C-alpha cells in the first residue's frame, strides 16, 4: 500500500532560498523567455476589452428615445450608481482591513508570501471594475433597447444582447488580463525589481491563487448585497404597490419601482458578473497551479510530446489560459451570430441565443483539439475539456427543464396551486430537491471522466489538473454565456421603461418577448454559475493542500538555523512532527531549506535527531540540492530517488500527517460545520431580505400616506429615498453573512487544524452545491409557475391558484436571487480564504489544537 501510494503521488518542489522563499529555478530558461504563443493570452484579453469598448460605443450611439424614456433610465442609472458608490465604500473598508491582516501575516508572522496582500487587492479591484462596467452599460442600454425595439425585434435583441456582451467580455478580458499580467510580472520582472532569485513557477501560481480571494470577497459583496437590495425592492414594490395599492408592475406611481429596476442591475448584472469573474479566474488559476504541481511531482506525463521539464512547466501552466484566450475569440464570434427575425416566437428567440452559445461551444471543441495538438499535450486533456463543455450544456438544459414553464416540473407546481398554497409550496420544494440530481450527477460524472482522461489513476495531480481543465472548458465561452445572463435584466429594464414611458403596443409586445427570453436565460445562467463552482471545487481542494505544503515549508524556512561548523546539515524541530532541515551550500546564497514532517510511509527517511531516530518525509526540496555534496548524509537515498522520479512525499502524505480521515473527529466536525454554515448563511441572507424588505414596505406606505397625489398621478414619488433604503439595508445586512464566510474557515482551521478545514470545505461544498441548486431551481420554478398561471392557466391572474402562486414566488424570490446564488460564492470564498490563510493554520493550528487537547 505504501509503495502504491508513493508511486501514485509525487512531490518534488523547488527549494526556496531563505531570503525570498523563492529558489533559483534551474529547470527554467535562465532568460525567462516566454514562447511566442503565450503572448496570444494577453492579446486575446486585450481584444475582449477592445470589443467590449466597441460594443459599448455602438450602444451609446443608439437613441435613448423620448424624454420620458431618458428620464426613467436616468432614475435607474442614478440609483445604480448610488448603490455602487455606497457598496464600494463598505468594500474598501473591508479590503483595507483584510489587506492589513494579510500584510501582518506576511511581514509580521511570516506565514504568507509578501505579495499576497497586493494580489488580494487587485483581484477585488478588477472584479469590482468588471461589475461597474457591466452595470454602467446595462443602465445605459435599457432605454436604448426599448427604443430599438420600436424599430424591430432584432434591433431590440441586438442592443440588449450586445450590452450583455459588454459585461461578458469585460469580465473575461479583465480576468485574463489580470492573470497574464501578474504572471508576466512575477515570472519576468519581480526579481529584477525587488532583487533576489527568480520565483519558481509553483510559488508564482500559489501567489496568484490568492488573488482569487479578492475576487471572491468582491463577488460575495456584490451577490449578497445585490441580492438583498433587489429582493427588498421587489418585495416592497409588490407587497405595497401591487397587493395593497393594486398598482401593476413597472407603474411609475410605485415609489419602489425604480429601486426594483435598479435591483435587477445590481443583483443580476454586477452580482452575476463578479460571481463568474471569480469562477473564471479561480478555475484558470487553480488549474494552472495543479498543472505545475503535476509536472513538478510527476515528471513528464505519458502522451506529452515535449521533452524538457521547463517547456512542460510553462505549457501546463499556460494551457488553461490559452484555452480561455481561444474561448474569448470564439465568444466574440458567437456574439455576432445572435440575431433574429421580426415576429419570432419564443422558441425562435431562444434559438437565436443558443445559436451563439452552441456555435461557440462547438468551435471551442475544435480549437481545443488544435491547442492540445499544437502544445503536444496528452489527448486526455482534450477529453477533459469536452467533458467540461458538455457538463455546462447539460446543467444548463437540466436547469431549463426544471424551471421553464414549457416542461412538466413547473407545470406540476402550477397544478398544485389549484389545491392551495400549501401544496404549491410542497410541490416547489419537492421539484427543487429533485432537480438537484441532474447537476450533481453531471458534475460527479464529469469529475470522474476528466480525472480518468488525464491519467488520474496513475498520477493524481494530473487527474486533478484534468478536472480543473474541465472547469476551464466549461467556462471557456463565458464571454457569451455571461452576455446571455446579463441580457436578462437589461431586457427586463427595457420592458419596464417601455411600460413607464407608455410606448405603443407593438413596442411593448417586442419588449415583453425579449423580457420573457431573459427570464429563461437567467435561470440557466444561475445553474451554470453553480455548476462551475462545483467543478472547480475539487481543483481548489487540491490547491488548498498545495498551499498547506507551501505553508509547511515557509514555517521551516523562517526558522532557519545554520549548521554548526563541520556538520553536514542542521535539523530544527518545529513541533508537532514538523522539521526544518538546513543544508549549507558552497556559499551563503546556496544555503537551502528543506522542510519535512514525520511519517511512516515506506519512502520515509530515518534521521538521527537529538539522540533518537525519527522517520520523516521531505516536504520541499530544491534542485540546487542536487549540486550539494550529499554523500554520507541521510538524504542521499531520498535525493537520489527523487532525481530518478521515485520516492517523494505527496498528497497522501499530507493527508496522513494531518490525519484527514473520516474517523478523525476534527474532519467530521468540520463537515458538520460546513453544512451548518451553508444553512446559517442561507438563513442570514433570507432574514436580511425580510428585514430590508420590511423597511421598504414602511417607506412605500409612508409615501402613499403622506403624498396622496402619487396615486392620482399628480405627484412624483420619491424614488431616490427607496433606492437609499434598499441600499442601506443591503449594506447593513450583508456584513454578518460575509463575516461568517470569511472568519469560519480561519476559526475552524485554528481550532481543528487542516483536517477540520478540509472537512469544512467538503461539507460546505457538498451541501452548498445541493442547497444552491435546490434554491435556485425551486425559486425559478415557482416564479415560472406563477407566470404560467398568468398566461391563462388555472384561472390566470386574480384566481385562487394565482394567489397561491404569488405566495410561492415570494418565497422563491430570496431562494433564487439572494441565498441560492450567494451559496456558490460562499463555497469558493471558503476555499479561497482557506488557501490564503493556510500558512497561518499550518503554523498555529496544531498549537491551539494541542492547547485545547483536541488534536488526535
Amino acid at each position, binding site marked *: 500500500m505504501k509503495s502504491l501510494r508513493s508511486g501514485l503521488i509525487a512531490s518534488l518542489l523547488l527549494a526556496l532560498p531563505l531570503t525570498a522563499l523563492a529558489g533559483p529555478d534551474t529547470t527554467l530558461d535562465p532568460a525567462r523567455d516566454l514562447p511566442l504563443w503565450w503572448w496570444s493570452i494577453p492579446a486575446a484579453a486585450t481584444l475582449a476589452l477592445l470589443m467590449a469598448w466597441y460594443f459599448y460605443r455602438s450602444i451609446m450611439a443608439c437613441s435613448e428615445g423620448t424624454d420620458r424614456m431618458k428620464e426613467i433610465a436616468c432614475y435607474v442609472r442614478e440609483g445604480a450608481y448610488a448603490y455602487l458608490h455606497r457598496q464600494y465604500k463598505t468594500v474598501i473598508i473591508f479590503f483595507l482591513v483584510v489587506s492589513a491582516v494579510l500584510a501582518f501575516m506576511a511581514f509580521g508572522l511570516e506565514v504568507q508570501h509578501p505579495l499576497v496582500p497586493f494580489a488580494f487587492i487587485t483581484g477585488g479591484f478588477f472584479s469590482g471594475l468588471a461589475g461597474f462596467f457591466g452595470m454602467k452599460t446595462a443602465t445605459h442600454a435599457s432605454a436604448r433597447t426599448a427604443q430599438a425595439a420600436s424599430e424591430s425585434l432584432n434591433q431590440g435583441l441586438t442592443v440588449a444582447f450586445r450590452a450583455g456582451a459588454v459585461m461578458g467580455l469585460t469580465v473575461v478580458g479583465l480576468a485574463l488580463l489580470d492573470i497574464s499580467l501578474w504572471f508576466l510580472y512575477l515570472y519576468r520582472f519581480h526579481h529584477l525589481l525587488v532583487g533576489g532569485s527568480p520565483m519558481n513557477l509553483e510559488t508564482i501560481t500559489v501567489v496568484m491563487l490568492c488573488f482569487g480571494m479578492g475576487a471572491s470577497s468582491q463577488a460575495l459583496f456584490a451577490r449578497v448585497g445585490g441580492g438583498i437590495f433587489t429582493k427588498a425592492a421587489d418585495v416592497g414594490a409588490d407587497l405595497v404597490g401591487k397587493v395593497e395599492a393594486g398598482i401593476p408592475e413597472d407603474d411609475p406611481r410605485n415609489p419602489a419601482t425604480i429601486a426594483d429596476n435598479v435591483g435587477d442591475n445590481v443583483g443580476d448584472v454586477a452580482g452575476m458578473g463578479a460571481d463568474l469573474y471569480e469562477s473564471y479566474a479561480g478555475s484558470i488559476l487553480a488549474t494552472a497551479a495543479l498543472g505545475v504541481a503535476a509536472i513538478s511531482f510527476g515528471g513528464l506525463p505519458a502522451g506529452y510530446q515535449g521533452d524538457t521539464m521547463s517547456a512542460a512547466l510553462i505549457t501546463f501552466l499556460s494551457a488553461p489560459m490559452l484555452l480561455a484566450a481561444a474561448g474569448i475569440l470564439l465568444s466574440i464570434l458567437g456574439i455576432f451570430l445572435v440575431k433574429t427575425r421580426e415576429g419570432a416566437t419564443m422558441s425562435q428567440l431562444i434559438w437565436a441565443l443558443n445559436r451563439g452559445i452552441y456555435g461557440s461551444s462547438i468551435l471551442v471543441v475544435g480549437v481545443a483539439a488544435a491547442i492540445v495538438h499544437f502544445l503536444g499535450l496528452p489527448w486526455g486533456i482534450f477529453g477533459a475539456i469536452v467533458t467540461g463543455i458538455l457538463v455546462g450544456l447539460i446543467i444548463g438544459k437540466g436547469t431549463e427543464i426544471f424551471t421553464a414553464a414549457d416542461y412538466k416540473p413547473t407545470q406540476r407546481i402550477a397544478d398544485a396551486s389549484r389545491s392551495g398554497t400549501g401544496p404549491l409550496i410542497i410541490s416547489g420544494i419537492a421539484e427543487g430537491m429533485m432537480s438537484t440530481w441532474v447537476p450533481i450527477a453531471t458534475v460527479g460524472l464529469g469529475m470522474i471522466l476528466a480525472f480518468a482522461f488525464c491519467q488520474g489513476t496513475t498520477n493524481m495531480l494530473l487527474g486533478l489538473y484534468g478536472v480543473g481543465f474541465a472547469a476551464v472548458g466549461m467556462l471557456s465561452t463565458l464571454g457569451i454565456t455571461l452576455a446571455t445572463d446579463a441580457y436578462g435584466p437589461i431586457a427586463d429594464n427595457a420592458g419596464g421603461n417601455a411600460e413607464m414611458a407608455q410606448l405603443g*403596443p407593438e413596442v411593448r409586445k417586442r419588449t415583453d418577448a425579449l423580457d420573457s427570453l431573459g427570464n429563461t436565460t437567467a435561470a440557466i445562467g444561475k445553474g451554470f454559475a453553480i455548476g462551475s463552482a462545483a467543478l472547480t471545487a475539487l481543483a481548489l481542494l487540491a490547491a488548498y493542500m498545495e498551499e498547506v505544503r507551501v505553508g509547511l515549508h515557509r514555517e521551516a524556512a523562517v526558522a532557519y538555523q545554520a549548521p554548526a561548523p563541520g556538520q553536514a546539515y542542521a535539523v530544527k524541530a518545529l513541533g508537532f512532527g514538523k522539521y526544518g532541515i538546513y543544508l549549507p551550500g558552497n556559499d551563503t546564497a546556496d544555503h537551502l531549506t528543506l522542510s519535512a514532517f514525520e511519517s511512516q510511509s515506506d519512502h520515509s527517511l530515518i534521521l538521527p535527531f537529538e539522540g533518537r531516530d525519527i522517520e520523516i518525509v521531505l516536504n520541499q526540496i530544491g534542485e540546487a540540492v542536487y549540486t550539494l555534496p550529499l554523500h554520507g548524509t541521510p538524504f542521499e537515498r531520498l535525493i537520489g530517488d527523487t532525481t530518478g522520479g521515485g520516492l517523494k512525499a505527496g498528497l497522501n502524505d499530507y493527508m496522513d500527517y494531518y490525519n484527514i480521515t473520516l474517523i478523525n473527529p476534527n474532519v467530521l466536525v468540520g463537515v458538520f460545520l460546513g453544512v451548518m454554515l451553508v444553512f446559517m448563511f442561507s438563513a442570514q441572507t433570507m432574514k436580511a431580505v425580510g428585514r430590508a424588505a420590511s423597511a421598504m414596505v414602511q417607506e412605500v406606505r409612508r409615501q402613499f400616506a403622506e403624498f396622496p397625489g402619487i396615486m*392620482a398621478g399628480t405627484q412624483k414619488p420619491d424614488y431616490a429615498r427607496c433606492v437609499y433604503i434598499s441600499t442601506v439595508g443591503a449594506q447593513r445586512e450583508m456584513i454578518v453573512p460575509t463575516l461568517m464566510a470569511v472568519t469560519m474557515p480561519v476559526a475552524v482551521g485554528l481550532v481543528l487544524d487542516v483536517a477540520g478545514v478540509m472537512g469544512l470545505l467538503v461539507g460546505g461544498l457538498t451541501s452548498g452545491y445541493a442547497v444552491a441548486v435546490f434554491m435556485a431551481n425551486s425559486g425559478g420554478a415557482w416564479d415560472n409557475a406563477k407566470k404560467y398561471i398568468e398566461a391563462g392557466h388555472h384561472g390566470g391572474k386574480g384566481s385562487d391558484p394565482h394567489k397561491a402562486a404569488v405566495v410561492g414566488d415570494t418565497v422563491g424570490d430570496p431562494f433564487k436571487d439572494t441565498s441560492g446564488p450567494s451559496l456558490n460564492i460562499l463555497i469558493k470564498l471558503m476555499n479561497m480564504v482557506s488557501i490564503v490563510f493556510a500558512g497561518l493554520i499550518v503554523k498555529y493550528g496544531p498549537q491551539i489544537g494541542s492547547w485545547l487537547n483536541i488534536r488526535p
Partner: protein
Amino acid sequence: MTPHLYLICNRLEALVASHLTAEDFGTYMAVGTRKNNYGNVMFFEIDPAVRHAYPAADAALRQCTPRPDGQPRRSKYASIYRVMENLPRSAFNRLYLGTRDGRVLGLDPTEPASEPLESSPYLYQELAPVAPLVTSSLAPAAFADHITNPANLVHVPRIFFADLRVDRDPDGHLAGSLPYPHPPHIEDCLRDMAEQPGKKIKTVNRNPEMRAFYRTIRHGFYLGDQDGLTAYPFPTSETLDALHHPWWRSASME
C-alpha cells in the same frame, strides 16, 4: 366649476354630486386622498337634468360648492339605497369602470343586439340592487325582463348586471384563463341549467368575491327594466390592450 352627477352602482347604490370629471372621480373613489378604498368602482354619469325629476339630485347639485380653499368639491352624497330604480333610464349616460388603483374606462350606452350572441346557459353577475352570481337560460334582454317582472314572486324594479365568460377548454371544462373561484361548482350549475329546460335562473353564489372581475366580462354590462334594456358593450381584450393599455393592465390584476 360645473358639478356632475354620478351614480355608484355595484353593491352600494349612491348618487353623488362632484366637481371632478368622471375619470378623476373614478380615481378619487378608488384611491381617495389619504385612504385606499378596496375594490372595483363602477358608476354611471347621470344627466344633471334629472334634478328636475329627483329632488335629492337637485339638492346635491346645489350643495356641491367649491371647498373653502377654492378646490373643487370631490363628493357630495345626495342619496343612497334604492336610487337606481328612481332615476329615469334615459338619464343614464356613460358607464365608468374604475380599477383598484384608480384607472377609469368609460363605456358608451347602445341598443342591445337583437339576437343573442351565444346560446344558453349564460352566466350573469348581478351588480345592483342585488349582487348574486347566477346562471340563466335567458339571453340578456329576456333575463332583465324576467327579473324585473312584477308578476314574478322574486323581482326588482331595475337590474344592472354583466354577462360573464363561460369559455371552455377542449376538455369541456371552463377555460383555464378564467379566474372564478371553484370552477367545478360553476360547471355543475351550468350543466344543471342545460339539463333542465324549464329552469330560467339558478343561483351560483349569493356573495361572490368578484376577483379579477373585468377579465371575466364577455359582451358587456346591461341596465334593464320592464321598459327595455341599455347595453354597454365591453371592448375585446385586444382592443383594450392596444387602446386602453394602462387600464387593462390594472384591470387584469386581481
